[in-house]
């Protein structure tokens, strides 16, 4: 058994994780990045449209406060407003940092950043690298990270447990897929940056690795989750694959049309039309389908058309090359003369591990679990509230990745890793996993259970929710939790045992799914991405509160916390 000692252990290797690693390493910390992904393949790489940051306030008459306000309004006032201020002030620095490590941002002829306007943003303030922004960021920062001698990457290591004892973080236990062994990582400070959990759903723009098990593991370790009921559906996922078609298309002027050729957004968001926030547009598409105004795909999926035929083809080739490629490969259409078939798919989790504004991970009472931070989609800093605006997530990952990394390095200085505590945890995990591998009997397959989970999530935690549907989904989920104990792993080997990984993932996913459904059931109002047919209005008197989830005696419990309203009072949200 092996326990490695570091100053800072970062879990996850997307933008947030790698940014944290760089920030900590620059402060002299010895950093381990422990990630279930191989190489630069985290899902940040699939981010397309861009990164919001007020880089040239004078060029467009923009300001940090306006960016923060748009974020607060976009999040339907469930945003912790000081977090939005932090995002707005810090994001431009991160764009410059990424520029200095080699991200090829699109530039205007005068050498300044090109900008595009995203949904819910009142100015063009999204910087971008064509429509492959995440790809260029990830390939630059991954190589940058590899240049540090004090950052060690442990790839294809699935973290199965956070070691938390006495209110403090001590390390993690991970399953090393390539060697087929468990490894412990002991460190006084940790940053969790494991991304989202789109694969709980059937239709998602997220990759196969975005399973969201860490949400569940975090609760097991005594951390709290917040606002998990707010799940973003991106309006334009390609039909039938669910691959993302960037919001950049609409930012460049694309229309959404129904089967009558009507730009239906005029009935839902007359001012901002296609550039309303994502929750508004996704709901509009859903309703068009419900009214029979959508197209029907051979797979049975209802969809609408994304129309770019009126745009200058040269500009499209320059600025949206990935859109052209994806439409051709995965839907067989040429967007220059055909409609692109799109429909909503799960894209982002506004909720996550509850943190304060500095990214410190909190328990259910709001106390910091000493030594632990969370950043990126895995975290809920409160910045997105009930709905995230497009292009705010790359900014979020970079900003809180850096803040967490810096703070973690400072905290670790002068502190020693508790190797024995982690060694004990490795031993306990070893027994648990051996038990899973040796389990006999039981006829459930992990992929069968996963399919059932994905279907029930769409029913109870979808774009439109109701008490009845959520209750039904929760019942089915309880049944699944019981059946998880009957899963049999047919792969007897330990090296690259994908079934073992999938079982471990599913354990965490089921816990996370329960928080989503519980929130969907309990929140009797409609706000941002959470829409209830039986409570169609926002109710600030009762529900201007965060939902907090935690484990108590093995069961998911929930409570409420106030929203930090410091600058802008809630107002009607019109677009």
């Amino acid at each position: 058994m092996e326990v490695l000692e570091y100053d800072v252990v970062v879990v996850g290797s997307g933008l947030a994780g790698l940014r944290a690693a760089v920030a900590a390493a620059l402060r002299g910390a010895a950093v381990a990045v422990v990630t279930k992904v191989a190489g630069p393949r985290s899902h940040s790489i699939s981010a397309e449209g861009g990164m919001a940051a007020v880089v040239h306030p004078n060029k467009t008459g923009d300001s940090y406060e306006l960016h923060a306000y748009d974020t607060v309004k976009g999040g339907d006032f469930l945003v912790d407003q000081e977090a939005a201020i932090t995002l707005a002030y810090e994001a431009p620095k991160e764009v410059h940092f990424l520029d200095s490590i080699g991200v090829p941002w699109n530039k205007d002829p005068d050498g300044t950043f090109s900008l595009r306007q995203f949904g819910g943003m009142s100015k063009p303030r999204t910087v971008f690298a064509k429509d492959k922004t995440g790809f260029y960021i990830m390939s630059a920062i991954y190589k940058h990270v590899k240049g540090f001698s004090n950052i060690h990457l442990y790839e294809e290591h699935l973290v199965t447990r956070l070691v938390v004892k006495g209110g403090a973080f001590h390390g993690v236990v991970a399953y090393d897929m390539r060697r087929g062994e468990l490894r412990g990582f002991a460190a006084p400070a940790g940053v969790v940056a494991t991304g989202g959990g789109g694969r709980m759903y059937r239709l998602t723009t997220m990759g196969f690795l975005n399973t969201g098990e860490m949400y569940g593991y975090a609760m097991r370790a005594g951390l709290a989750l917040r606002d998990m009921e707010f799940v973003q559906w991106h309006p334009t996922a390609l039909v039938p694959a669910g691959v993302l078609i960037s919001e950049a298309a609409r930012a460049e002027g694309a229309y959404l049309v129904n089967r009558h050729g009507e730009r239906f957004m005029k009935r839902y968001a007359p001012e901002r039309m296609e550039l309303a926030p994502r929750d508004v547009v996704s709901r509009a598409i859903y309703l068009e389908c419900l009214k029979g105004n959508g197209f029907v795909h051979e797979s049975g999926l209802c969809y609408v058309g994304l129309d770019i035929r009126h745009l200058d083809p040269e500009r499209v080739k320059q600025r949206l090359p990935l859109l052209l490629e994806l439409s051709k490969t995965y839907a067989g259409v040429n967007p220059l003369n055909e409609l692109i078939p799109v429909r909503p798919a799960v894209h982002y989790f506004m909720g996550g591990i509850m943190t304060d504004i500095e990214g410190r991970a909190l328990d259910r009472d709001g106390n910091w679990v000493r030594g632990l931070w969370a950043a990126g989609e895995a975290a809920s800093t409160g910045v997105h509230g009930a709905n995230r605006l497009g292009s705010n997530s790359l900014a979020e990952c970079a900003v809180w990745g850096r803040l967490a990394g810096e703070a973690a390095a400072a905290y670790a200085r002068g502190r020693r890793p508790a190797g024995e505590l982690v060694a004990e945890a490795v031993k306990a995990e070893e027994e648990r996993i051996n038990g899973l591998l040796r389990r006999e009997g039981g006829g459930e397959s992990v992929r069968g259970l996963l399919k059932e989970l994905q279907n029930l999530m769409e029913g109870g935690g979808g774009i439109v929710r109701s008490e009845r549907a959520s209750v039904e989904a929760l019942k089915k989920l309880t049944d699944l939790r019981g059946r998880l104990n009957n899963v049999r792993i047919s792969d007897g080997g330990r090296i690259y045992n994908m079934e073992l990984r999938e079982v471990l993932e599913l354990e965490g996913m089921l816990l996370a799914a329960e928080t989503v459904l519980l929130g969907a059931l309990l929140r009797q109002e409609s706000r941002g991405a959470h829409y209830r047919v039986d409570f169609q209005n926002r109710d600030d008197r009762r529900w201007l509160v965060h939902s907090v989830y935690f484990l108590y005696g093995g069961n998911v419990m929930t409570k409420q916390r106030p929203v930090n309203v410091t600058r802008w009072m809630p107002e009607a949200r019109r677009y």
Partner: protein
Amino acid sequence: MKSVVIKVKRYDGKKTWWQEYKVEAPSEKVSVLDLLVKVKEEQDPTLAVRYSCRMAICGSCGMVINGVPRLACQTLLSELKAEFITVEPMWNHKVIKDLVVDLEPDFEKVKKVKPYIIRDIKEIYETDKEFGQKPEELDKYYNFAYCIQCGLCMSACPVVATHERFLGPMALNAGYRWSADSRDQGWKERVKIIDAEEGVWACHLAYTCSAVCPRGVDPGFSIQLLKAAMLRKAKRP
């Protein structure tokens, strides 16, 4: 529905064997990855495959399909025009299990060419000064920056197959991309690494790398551009 037979070259750490699976493809538009995932779901969960984004950008699912190194998610049934598909792990790589190979040696080679902006560290971390880059400066390296490090070029390269120390197309392309970036000042440092027998000069111009690149990066061409810059003793390629 169409019946397809997939023959997969498997490896469990001890032995290698070929295994056939018969799957029903719901349409001609599905990818080889879709079919492999279907096999895992319906028939054999022990089959090891690396995949994530399924949109040809994360670079996980490189493998040899019907004798050509390709991304499984980007290879559609309709273009294979075959009812019989063979799938093997990428050539020139150590196999970990089934279709999962060890790409670490490739990444180590990329690391050797210092694939990042080289200039005064203070300029990177301590100022907000914009380095600035004009569209025409961007065009010099943009296409070469689209390498997703999937390893297919390394799998296809005949020199990599026989010359273990050869840096190979993936690393050399990175050497070009970073040196051609107007923000970079590291060309002199990199020349020392790639102006060597295991650097650009081992390339035989087979161009198989460019032929299999799923992103149209053309590493074969970047290697020639590097050679040209060295011979001309240019300040940057």
